[in-house]
C-alpha cells in the first residue's frame, strides 16, 4: 500500500494571493480617495462605505467591495474581480451584479451610537472592475453573451459599468469600457464618475487610505492576514515572548486597528497559517492560541516570505476554509475573483 503523502502547502500560491489581494486593496483605496478627497466628487457624496454589508431582501446579504450614496439619492456599488475561464465563474459574477442592481438601500453615515444607517437609494449603478488583461473576455461573456441574451436570466435593472484597470509606472489607470457598456446615472449631479476618463490615481493619493483601512471587503487571504497579525496586531495588542491569544480578543484587536473591519473566519485562518508556520500553538481548537514571539530573520528577511517558507517546510496544510458558511447572495466561496 502506497504511503499517503504529507500535504505540502503551496508557498508560491500563498504569496501570489498576497500580492493580488494587496493590489485589490490599492484599487479600493483609489476609489475611496476619488469619492472622498476629490472636492468636486466628494461634494456629490453623502457616504462612501469601504466595508459594506447590505441586506438585499429577507435575510439575503450582499457585500460589494465598496458602495457610495450620492447626495441626489442615487447609489453605486463597486466590485473588483477577475473572471476565470469556467462558465460558473461568470454566472457567479452575474449573480453578484444582479443582486447589487436590485439594492434599494445602501450603508449611510455612522450614527452617534456607533451603528450605521441604511439609506434608501435609487437607481444603483454597478461598477465592475477588471484587470486590463481580462477586460475583453469580461465584456463578451457578461455583456454580450448574457446581458444581451433575452433568454438569459441575467437581467439587472441597469446595465453594469465595466471598467478596466492597469498600472502604468506607479499609477493605477482606470478606463471605462466603451462597447455596449452601461453609463453612470447623472441625476442632479454636476460631476459623476466617468466624466474624467481615464481616471489616474497615484500611490501618494491613495496611500493614506491603504494605511488607515488595510483591507478590502473580500475574504482576506490567509498569508495576508497572518502577516498583518504577526507584524502589527499581535505586537500591538498581545506583546510578549509567549502570550495567550483568545480568538474573540484578537478579532476585536484586528477591528480596532482596521477601522472596524476584521472577520472572525479570516482572523482564524490567519492564525492557522501562523500555527502551521510554528509560530503559534492551538490550545483550544480554532478559539485560542499561545503565540511565541521569535525572530524569523534566518528564514527570510521579509516576514511574509518567511512565514510562507516556514509553512512550506513544516509540510502542514492549514485547514481549508469551512465548507459551511452563512448564507449570502454573493457567497464568495465559489466566486472566482482573484481577490
Amino acid at each position, binding site marked *: 500500500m502506497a504511503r499517503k503523502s504529507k500535504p505540502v502547502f503551496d508557498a508560491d500560491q500563498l504569496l501570489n494571493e498576497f500580492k493580488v489581494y*494587496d493590489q485589490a486593496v*490599492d484599487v479600493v483605496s483609489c476609489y475611496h*480617495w*476619488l469619492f472622498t*478627497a*476629490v*472636492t*468636486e*466628487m*466628494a461634494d456629490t457624496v453623502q457616504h462612501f462605505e469601504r466595508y459594506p454589508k447590505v441586506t438585499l431582501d429577507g435575510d439575503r446579504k450582499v457585500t460589494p467591495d465598496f458602495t457610495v450614496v450620492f447626495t441626489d439619492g442615487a447609489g453605486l456599488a463597486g466590485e473588483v474581480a477577475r473572471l476565470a475561464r469556467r462558465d460558473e465563474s461568470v454566472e457567479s459574477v452575474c449573480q453578484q451584479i444582479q443582486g447589487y442592481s436590485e439594492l434599494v438601500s445602501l450603508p449611510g453615515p455612522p450614527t452617534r451610537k456607533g451603528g450605521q444607517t441604511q439609506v434608501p437609494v435609487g437607481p444603483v449603478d454597478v461598477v465592475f472592475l477588471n484587470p486590463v488583461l481580462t477586460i475583453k473576455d469580461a465584456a463578451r461573456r457578461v455583456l454580450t453573451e448574457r446581458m444581451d441574451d433575452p433568454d438569459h436570466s441575467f437581467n439587472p435593472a441597469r446595465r453594469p459599468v465595466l471598467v478596466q484597470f492597469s*498600472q*502604468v*509606472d*506607479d*499609477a493605477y*489607470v482606470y478606463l471605462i469600457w466603451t462597447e455596449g457598456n452601461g453609463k453612470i446615472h447623472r441625476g442632479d449631479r454636476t*460631476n459623476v464618475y466617468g*466624466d*474624467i476618463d*481615464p*481616471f*489616474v*490615481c*497615484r*500611490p*501618494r*493619493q491613495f*496611500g*493614506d487610505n*491603504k*494605511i*488607515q483601512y488595510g483591507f478590502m471587503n473580500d475574504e482576506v487571504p490567509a498569508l495576508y492576514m497572518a*502577516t498583518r497579525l*504577526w*507584524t*502589527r496586531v499581535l*505586537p*500591538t*495588542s498581545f*506583546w510578549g515572548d509567549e502570550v495567550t491569544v483568545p480568538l474573540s480578543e484578537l478579532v476585536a484587536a484586528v477591528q*480596532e*486597528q482596521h*477601522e472596524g473591519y476584521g472577520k472572525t473566519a479570516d482572523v482564524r485562518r490567519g492564525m492557522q497559517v501562523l500555527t502551521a508556520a510554528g509560530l503559534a500553538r492551538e490550545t483550544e481548537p480554532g478559539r485560542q492560541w499561545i503565540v511565541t*514571539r521569535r*525572530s*524569523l*530573520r534566518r528564514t527570510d*528577511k*521579509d*516576514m*511574509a516570505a518567511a512565514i510562507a517558507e516556514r509553512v512550506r517546510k513544516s509540510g502542514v496544510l492549514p485547514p481549508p476554509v469551512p465548507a459551511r458558511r452563512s448564507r449570502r447572495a454573493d457567497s464568495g466561496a465559489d466566486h472566482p475573483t482573484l481577490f
Partner: protein
Amino acid sequence: MAYDAVLDAVLSTWTTPARFATFAHVVDRAAESDKGRVPHVAFETVWVSDGHPFDHLKARAVLDGTRRSVGDVEILRLVDDEGPWQIVALPTVHEGVFHLAGGIPTTHSRWQKVVRWVERARDLSRCFLNHRDFRAFGERLQKFGEVEVVHVTGRSSFDQSSYFRGFKPMSGSLRPTPEDLIVEFEGNNAYVRSWTLRVGEELNFHLRRVAGATFYSGQYRLFEDQVLAPLADAASTRRALLTGKQRRRAVPVVPLSIVLAKKVFNTREDTGMLVDLAQGMADMSMAVFHRNPYLHFVLTDEGDGSNFDVMVTVPDVVNVFPGFRASPASLARVTGRIAEAFGAVRIEQAEPRPKASLADLVEA
C-alpha cells in the same frame, strides 16, 4: 589610544555642588591644572521619554559602574582594565534632553563604547539634525570670528560612499567656509555628516550631524551657549515631534516625512536600497506589502512591539506612519537611521493631505 586624563581626574573629585557649581567650573579647573590648556570634551546629545539616560544605558565590558549625583548632574564612574573613567550626564533646559560628556577623545575605544551603549539603549534616543539646524551653526558663529572648516566628512545620498576633506592652514588665506563646503558636497549629491570648525581664536570644535560635538579649544562657555544649547534645542524639538504619535482609531493617519535633499528613489533598484537598509536592522522585522513600482513595507520593533508602515510614493520622501503601538524611542531609531542613510534634509510631520480636484485625475 592614550589620552590626557586631566578632566577625568578633576571629575573624580566632583562630589558636591559646593566644590564645582557647574560642569564649566570643572572644565576651568582642569585647564588650571594643565597650565591653562583647556581639555577636550566629547558630548553626545540624547533624549529620553522617561527616567534618566543612565537608567537606560547598559555599560558592557566594564569591571564596575557606580552612579552619583551632584546637584542635578549625574556622574557614572566606570572601571575597566585600564582603570577608572567617568561619563557625566548634564541636564539641559529641556525636559528629557541631556548631554553625555566625557574627557575622552571620540576616537578612543572607551568613548566608542559609550556610543555603542547609546545606540543599543532601547529608550535612549539620538537626534539626526535637520539640515537647517546643522547649517545654522556656521552662520550663528560668524559674529564671533571668521568661521573656517578644518575637516569635513560626508556621505553620498545615492550610494552611501564616504567623503573626506581636510584643509591645512595657509598664511594669507582662510580655509573654506561651512557654506562653501555645503555647496560643494551638494554638487556631488552628498551631505555633510560632520565638520571641525574654527572660529577665529575663540573656538575650535567638532560637530556631528547625529547630534554631538567635541570641544577642542577656546572659550568653553561660548561653546556651551552656541553649540551645546542649540543641540539641546534640536533634540527637544525632535523629542516633541516623535512623542505621542501612535495611531488612534477613526483619526486620519498623518505620516512623519523624512525629506531627502535629492530625488533618490526613482526606480525599483533605488527603493531596493531602502529595503536593504530596513532588512539590515537587526532589531526590526520587516514585511513587504508592495514592492513595485511604489514601495510599502511594515517594520516591527522586536524590542518593544512598536510598528510602522513605511511608504515611498515620491522620489525624495520616505513616509513613516506610526502604528497603534509606536514608542518615541523606536520611532527615533527608524526615522534616524533612514535619515542618516540617505542624507535627509529634515524629519517633519506631514501636513494633512489637501483635497484634490478633478484636474488631479488626469495623467500629468
